[in-house]
């Protein structure tokens, strides 16, 4: 235990590490905390995925098969909350914990105890949220967006929902402070901002977004809480309140939240494509400015989520055009990734396959986003399966594939062993095929008018729902290969050297694989930084 409590000592004076449960409960080491975040994320991914497969089972054909409508609504709500706050966000924080100190030549995160607190808040938050399935009235069922007045009808689960959202927000804010302080202060001498890897850049900007918008969510859910328990009427028309105000406040948080879930994936893809193209990243600086521009624009587009509630024509025009403007920096990124591959010596290992799938499929999600930005068209698409298809292309083939690409890229560094690439290829191809079988038909269903968040539907939607459900089961089951591959890698992967991929650049590849418990106890030399910072 002494090793943990005497963290202020220079790291090289206690190279041994704590053992047993203390290593994890009192963890202050960025790698251990990163690992815990990734395990939590994986667990939540399979819980949220189980909810998704139950949803697809119910929707396989018309007529209620398995659940009553209330429970179905709980499943959709909890699937959204668990995947967003439990699977995607903690996975990126886990990757940040593991990689940022290694990539900037720092011995650890700047605030290790705060890092421990940020992580350990989350298991309590999710235990609280998931246990709401077992209280009177069942789990929250008003959608992950928690719109009043519907959400105010939630039973005993309501305060559990609000408190767990507060806990998740607090954890994110603490994690974001840690990331900013680490990147600003702990970079190795000589590693200027514009020599940082793009994953670090993307996380620096994401951390600013988190600090800016998580408090807004906290304010919104606190207002829900006081409306429910203390007689306020923020969102109750009968008392002079306005339910539409909640939507404005929520989406002022919610749209930047989308970018919180995608910007780190941009960073990961910007690491992987140059490695497997054996070329420097095309347009490094423009990539940084593009990420910053997207982050800025994310604050002025929120009302495109709610065109149909009614707003002045000028507001509709403003939000439509500002939303379309996001296509410009996003287009810069897609162009630069493509230009990086141009005339490169490409190879197609699993990280690159996931990165390429990201490039194609996230772009489909981006294009359907542009369609949704057009106000008169959005009036037709609103609350249909077209929207469901759109955001799943962004968040599954975007954020999730980005995370998988990152894990496949850095897993050999973390474990010191190379995984079974054939199994990785199987995982990729099954995922890439089934994810399209799952989500592409939902565009057709939406365009044909099938509404979202319903447990049953008219008979003309049957065929594509069956196809979508088959894709869902296939996608869900093929994810079981992922933990098996990781387990097999840890158990029996072939040992590798410092640089797992011959084209890889970056300070993390200058360290042994796996890196020592306390890495970069002395900052990297200028020569090492120059070698690592070749963009």
């Amino acid at each position: 235990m002494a090793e943990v409590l005497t963290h202020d000592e220079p790291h090289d004076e206690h190279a041994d590490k704590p053992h047993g449960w203390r290593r994890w409960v009192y963890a202050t080491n960025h790698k251990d905390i990163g690992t815990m975040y990734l395990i939590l994320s994986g667990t939540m991914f399979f819980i949220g995925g189980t909810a998704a497969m139950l949803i697809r089972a119910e929707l396989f054909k018309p007529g209620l098969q398995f659940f009553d409508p209330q429970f179905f609504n709980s499943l959709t709500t909890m699937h959204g909350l668990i995947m967003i706050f439990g699977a995607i966000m903690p996975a990126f924080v886990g990757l940040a914990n593991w990689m940022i100190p290694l990539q900037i030549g720092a011995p650890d995160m700047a605030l290790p105890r705060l890092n421990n607190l940020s992580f350990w808040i989350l298991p309590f938050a999710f235990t609280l949220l998931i246990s709401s399935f077992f209280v009177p009235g069942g789990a929250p069922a008003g959608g992950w967006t928690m719109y009043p007045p519907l959400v105010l009808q939630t039973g005993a689960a309501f305060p559990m929902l609000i408190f767990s959202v507060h806990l998740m927000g607090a954890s994110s804010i603490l994690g974001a402070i840690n990331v900013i302080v680490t990147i600003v202060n702990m970079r190795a001498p000589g590693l200027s901002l514009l020599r940082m890897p793009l994953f670090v850049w993307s996380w620096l900007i994401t951390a600013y977004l988190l600090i800016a918008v998580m408090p807004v969510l906290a304010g919104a859910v606190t207002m829900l809480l006081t409306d429910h328990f203390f007689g306020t009427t923020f969102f109750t028309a009968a008392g002079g309140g306005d339910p539409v105000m909640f939507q404005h406040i929520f989406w002022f948080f919610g749209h930047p939240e989308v970018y919180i879930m995608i910007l780190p994936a941009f960073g990961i893809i910007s690491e992987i494509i140059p490695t497997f193209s054996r070329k420097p990243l095309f347009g490094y600086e423009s990539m940084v400015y593009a990420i910053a521009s997207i982050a800025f624009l994310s604050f002025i587009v929120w009302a495109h989520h709610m065109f149909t509630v009614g707003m002045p024509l000028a507001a509709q025009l403003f939000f439509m055009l500002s939303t379309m403007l996001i296509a410009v920096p996003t287009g810069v990124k897609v162009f630069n990734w493509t230009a990086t591959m141009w005339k490169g010596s490409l190879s197609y290992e699993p990280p690159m396959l996931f990165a390429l799938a990201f490039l194609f499929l996230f772009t489909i999600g981006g294009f359907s986003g542009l369609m949704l930005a057009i106000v008169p068209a959005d009036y037709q698409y609103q609350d249909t399966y077209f929207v469901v298809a759109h955001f799943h292309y962004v968040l599954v083939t975007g954020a999730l594939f980005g995370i998988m690409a990152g894990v496949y890229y850095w897993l050999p560094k973390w474990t010191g062993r190379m995984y079974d690439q054939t199994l990785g290829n199987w995982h990729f191809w099954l995922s890439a095929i089934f994810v399209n079988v799952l989500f592409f038909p939902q565009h057709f269903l939406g365009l044909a008018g099938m509404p979202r968040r319903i447990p049953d539907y008219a008979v003309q939607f049957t065929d594509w729902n069956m196809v979508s459900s088959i894709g869902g089961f296939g996608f869900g089951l093929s994810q079981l290969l992922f933990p098996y591959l990781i387990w097999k890698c840890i158990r029996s992967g072939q040992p590798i050297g410092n640089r797992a991929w011959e084209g890889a650049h970056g300070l993390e590849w200058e360290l042994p694989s796996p890196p020592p418990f306390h890495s970069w106890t002395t900052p990297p030399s200028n020569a090492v930084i120059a070698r690592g910072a070749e963009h």
Partner: protein
Amino acid sequence: MAAADLEASHEQRRRVRRSALLWGLIAAAFYVGFIVLAVVRGTK
């Protein structure tokens, strides 16, 4: 550890503490501010 290294290490710790406090205060002000503003305005 050489004296210069020690001084650099102390300076880095000071910078970490300062920026952690700054960002902590900003985040706390946002967090508490939004909630207090919301509740105060709602109870008027």
